[in-house]
């Protein structure tokens, strides 16, 4: 048993974990928890409760999907990337370019194409970049993103350069549900459905043996090499899937906003998604959800009123999280919950 024990998962039920319960935990890990439908119920409730905030809600859902894709690469596989907006932008520009030049604009197939293009870039860059680790990897992902951003800026005739591609026309989904920029109901439901599908994929992945081996690589790459795991291929595959999901998020962004510009490829976006994920808690399925809600609600209401103070507050928050709360909001919640439990039933 000891050889199979997952090195990753935090001991959830305290220190007195017998072999039996540990085995039970491993077997039952992937089962649906009671509270797991909650985020989705909340998302549906949001639709009815705040009809005037659906544009904001759509944006929020896209950030969640993007953060989820980063979680797969950074949180689970431990790939230190600061350039994930490269794939978001690749997806956004795929959708944007095809629609703007009147080549293809059907929403769902466009998203598939966005995923494919982003995955191709992820695979090509992953094959060469993932030989490296640490600072070199960080620099390489950063440079790849900057390269794409400059490329999009330079290919002015096609991409519109700095101004981007304005007013895309996206046809109705299945020819039935129209994208209305003033009442983004379709956008919200559509994004929610795609996010749900993306979430199911990520959830299935991380609870699979493949996901287990990713966690193993994050925790101890040398040992994974030693036990004969094809470390580099696992990382490349993970990076490619993560890129594809980020590409879908970017494609959604282009469709629901009906425009694309260079901000989709910017360091700003890459840093924001990084912050969202770590704020919520990385390497756990729901960190992306909690982080995106916390960050965007704060940003939406504070940043408009006090932009500078907001930035100062955000900076201080990040410093505090890095120093004292390594696992983000969910990590804090976990600790409190464990403390609460041990106090109630002292062992």
């Amino acid at each position, binding site marked *: 048993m000891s050889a199979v024990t997952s090195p990753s998962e935090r001991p959830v039920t305290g220190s007195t974990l017998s072999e039996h319960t540990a085995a039970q935990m491993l077997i039952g890990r992937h089962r649906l928890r009671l509270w797991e439908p909650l985020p989705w119920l909340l998302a549906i409730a949001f639709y009815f409760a705040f009809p005037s905030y659906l544009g904001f809600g759509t944006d929020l859902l896209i950030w969640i999907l993007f953060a989820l894709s980063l979680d797969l690469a*950074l949180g689970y596989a431990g790939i*230190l990337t*600061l350039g994930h907006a490269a794939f978001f932008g690749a997806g956004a520009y795929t959708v944007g370019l095809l629609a703007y030049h009147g080549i293809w604009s059907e929403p769902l197939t466009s998203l598939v194409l966005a995923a494919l293009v982003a995955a191709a870039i992820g695979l090509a860059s992953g094959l*060469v*970049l993932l*030989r*490296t680790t*640490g*600072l*070199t990897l*960080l*620099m*390489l992902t*950063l*440079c*790849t993103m*900057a*390269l794409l951003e*400059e*490329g999009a*800026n*330079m290919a*002015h005739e096609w991409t519109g350069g700095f101004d981007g591609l304005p007013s895309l026309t996206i046809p109705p989904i299945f020819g039935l549900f129209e994208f209305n920029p003033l009442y983004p109901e379709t956008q919200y439901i559509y994004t929610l459905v795609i996010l749900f599908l993306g979430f199911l994929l990520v959830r299935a992945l991380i609870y699979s043996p493949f996901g287990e081996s990713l966690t193993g690589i994050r925790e101890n790459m040398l040992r994974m090499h030693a036990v004969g795991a094809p470390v580099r291929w696992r990382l490349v595959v993970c990076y490619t899937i993560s890129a594809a999901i980020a590409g879908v998020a970017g494609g959604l962004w282009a469709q629901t906003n009906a425009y694309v510009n260079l901000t989709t490829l910017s*360091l700003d976006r890459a*840093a924001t998604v*990084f*912050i969202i994920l*770590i704020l919520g808690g*990385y390497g756990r399925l729901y960190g992306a959800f909690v982080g995106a809600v916390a960050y965007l609600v704060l940003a939406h209401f504070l940043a408009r009123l006090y932009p*500078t*103070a907001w*930035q*100062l507050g*955000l*900076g*201080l*928050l*990040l*410093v505090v*999280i*890095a*120093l004292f709360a*390594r696992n983000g909001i969910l990590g804090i919640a976990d600790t409190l919950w464990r403390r609460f439990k041990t106090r109630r039933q002292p062992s």
Partner: protein
Amino acid sequence: MIFGIDVASILLGGLSAGTVLFIISVGLSVTMGLMGFVNLAHGAFAMFGGYVIVLSMNQLGVPFIPALITGFVVTAAVSAVFERLLYARLYRAGELDQVLFTIGLVFVFIAGITLIVGPETQPFTPPAALRGQMDLGFTEYRTYSIFLIVVGALIVIGLWLGFERTRLGAQIRATVDNRRMAESLGINVDRLFSITFAFGSGMAALGGGLGAEFLGLDPQYALKYLVYFLIAVSVGGLGTVTGVYYASMLIGVFDFVLKLYLPKGGTIFIFALTILLLLWRPQGLFKRTEA
């Protein structure tokens, strides 16, 4: 324009830009080499120092050289406080936490400077003696750029001597090469790091002030040029002085040529070359391969 003169002015322009890049990045290289600390806030210290220098010149009328010294000392002192109170807690943490922490610090600096000084670009005028053109015999060029190149050359010689010929320099080199061994030989690595961190930030401050003429100085400075600092460090090699110097000069000249002939998006080649270079030599161009 005659071709020969054109080449000379391109070289001089590129070298002066490279000099600023070097002065700012060298501290980052040494501190990253020593502790493996991913310090994305280095540009923020350069910006902070630049503000101290430019504001003390513009608002208080301090002359150029004393202003530079003030910027160096103030920034070194402030960064030493940060290092002891905050950075020191994260040496054993993962790169992820270090990145998060230093990004947070960058935001704090940007917002702090916007709040205290304001969001506008600070004007910088070199002292009268350094304005205008200078006759070099073979060509005429801007005096300030020549001044920068000379200062950069003096600094690299000084740092090289300090690195290769002093006890402290030997300790730094030993720690970059093998930190555990250095520690077990009784080198106080924490103290060494505090000193180099403060000194490196002071150098960044000098670079921020000296480069304010053509890099500009506004609160976004800390993020705008960060990628260039990191490229200079990773191309030059962590923990080297001369490596970063050569790398900075290469990048400076390259950038200058590209901006001249490919004004739109010429920087794409810098990123592409950096990627190729790092794949070919992940340790950087000039790092001694034997560690």
